[in-house]
């Protein structure tokens, strides 16, 4: 399955009004699509990516491309999100660094990268920009919006901001708002970046990049994506390439080596400022506050979609109780909602890993939504 990254630029003459009060324009959105839109335009599914994801949800850019998109296990011909049946769209969020306008994009006012002149964007702003793309593609109503983690927040935002455009929604491993624990992890990650001398108040483009800080930030993230159980199984106290402790400050344990590897790998593909902006957007997200004046139940009175909410037993970033809060608010509004807590040892990241149960849930739910049932 060969895919091509496309771009849509809008808000050229009139900037996109952001929640912070500032305007952003022009705005470019990088996106990819798979499958074909049917004649009535009724088979479109919008997939929303998490913090470090991008528009490349599935397939490969060329025959030689060694790695498929981030959710290739879920999306493709005959898969749960079946590209033979559905027209599947995924775009990079604004504030990101994979083709959509973000802090590393050129600021038209200065001709140089925005850096910290980029306005603080919210999950609501990201969804507003996605709406422009969906309008551009000529889609009036989405069959489904699907996403996990930060993508799940966008799913919820879609359902409350544009209720008439969403027939069904699958928020996975997500939350109505960040807990203090989640904000705390993000803050430590941001501090790691900002403490890197190369960060230079965000003005590092063209010079040395704050790679050490970004790598540490990613390491913190990876701790939150796993679980006690997963780490015990994956690493335990096993040593890396040695039989005895080194009695030096080098890598001794496999878990240290794993985190360092993940950190290093990340800096090659991600922009530190984008990391700062996206984690801030996640921390600011509070759908009960933003759509219900503090009441999650009131917020969901706007929603019209049919929901499938899924959580994972070992997710300690967005534990099951947070999904149950969402479900409760939906029930109180008489919404059609299904909920399943999947037993999984892999923590928050479980939604990205092969999981037959998750695939069968999504497949069955979409088929039913497609029938209008």
């Amino acid at each position: 399955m060969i895919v091509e990254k496309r771009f849509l630029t809008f808000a050229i003459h009139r900037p996109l009004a952001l929640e912070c009060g500032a305007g952003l324009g022009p705005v470019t959105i990088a996106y990819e699509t798979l499958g074909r839109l049917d004649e009535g335009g009724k088979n479109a599914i919008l997939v929303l990516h998490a913090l470090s994801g991008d528009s490349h949800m599935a397939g490969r850019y060329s025959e030689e491309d060694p790695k498929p998109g981030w959710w290739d296990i879920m999306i493709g011909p005959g898969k749960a999100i079946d590209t033979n049946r559905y027209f599947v769209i995924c775009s990079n969020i604004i504030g990101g660094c994979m083709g959509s306008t973000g802090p590393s994009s050129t600021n038209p006012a200065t001709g140089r990268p925005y850096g910290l002149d980029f306005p603080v964007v919210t999950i609501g702003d990201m969804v507003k920009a996605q709406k422009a793309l969906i309008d551009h593609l000529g889609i009036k109503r989405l069959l489904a919006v699907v996403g996990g983690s930060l993508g799940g927040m966008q799913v919820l935002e879609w359902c409350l901001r544009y209720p008439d455009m969403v027939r069904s929604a699958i928020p996975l491993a997500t939350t109505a708002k960040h807990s203090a624990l989640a904000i705390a992890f993000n803050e430590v990650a941001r501090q790691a970046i900002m403490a890197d001398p190369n960060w230079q108040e965000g003005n590092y483009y063209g010079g040395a990049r704050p790679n050490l800080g970004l790598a540490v930030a990613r390491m913190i993230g990876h701790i939150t994506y796993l679980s006690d159980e997963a780490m015990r199984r994956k690493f335990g106290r096993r040593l890396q390439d040695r039989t005895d402790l080194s009695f030096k400050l080098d890598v001794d344990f496999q878990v240290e080596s794993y985190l360092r590897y993940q950190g290093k790998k990340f800096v090659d593909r991600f922009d530190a400022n984008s990391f700062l902006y996206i984690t801030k957007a996640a921390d600011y997200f509070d759908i009960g506050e933003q759509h219900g004046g503090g009441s999650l139940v009131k917020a969901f009175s706007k929603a019209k979609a049919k929901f499938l909410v899924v959580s994972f037993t070992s997710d300690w970033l967005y534990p099951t109780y947070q999904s149950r809060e969402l479900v409760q608010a939906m029930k109180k509004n008489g919404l059609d909602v299904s909920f399943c807590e999947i037993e999984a040892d892999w923590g928050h990241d479980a939604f990205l890993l092969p999981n037959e149960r998750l695939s069968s849930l999504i497949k069955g739910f979409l088929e039913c939504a497609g029938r209008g049932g």
Partner: protein
Amino acid sequence: MEVEKRDIRFDLKIIASWIEPGSRVLDLGCGEGTLLHYLREHRQVVGTGIEQHEAEVAACIAKGLTVLQGDLNQEVLDYPDRAFDYVILSQTLQQVYRPRELITSLMRIGSRVIVSFPNFSHWSIRLQVLMRGMAPKNQQLPYDWYNSPNIRVITLKDFRRFVEDLGFKVMEEAPINTQNQDRYGSIVRFLPNLRATYGVFMIGRANETR
């Protein structure tokens, strides 16, 4: 009793026959969704199920049913008043820790509540207690006293009184003779409290007519 489809349990067929087409139904302890699926196909209901076990919940959702994973005692609390036309508690009452609270709660969220349970006053059970002097075991109640999930001993007579005490009214009643997972059975008209293996009841508010 008109047999509409052969692949569901006899007691479920009775329940289905009481449900008006197009109504809103909540099925508590819905298992793999056999009844919900049947009601959707044959009664065009808008159904929701509640089930505790992940595998069964997943099986339901994969079939396109609306099902929530959770403890039914907790889950029913979130619904607004009269959110459903029928709330079904099939072969679960005997395992409920607080039946009074649960049935009251179900009558809040539903206009009608349908309850089915094994009848502990069946003659074979009485005979076992009388002759063997031991806790009864049979096909409907295949457990020993120490591992039985059935913590409530209910008879048809007891249930009728229970409904009255709560201030509700029995709207329909079907004492049936059927085996545990059986698709066949019959309604017991003569000496039901002695001869029925299960009781199926539909209860409503006292001031209502059928």
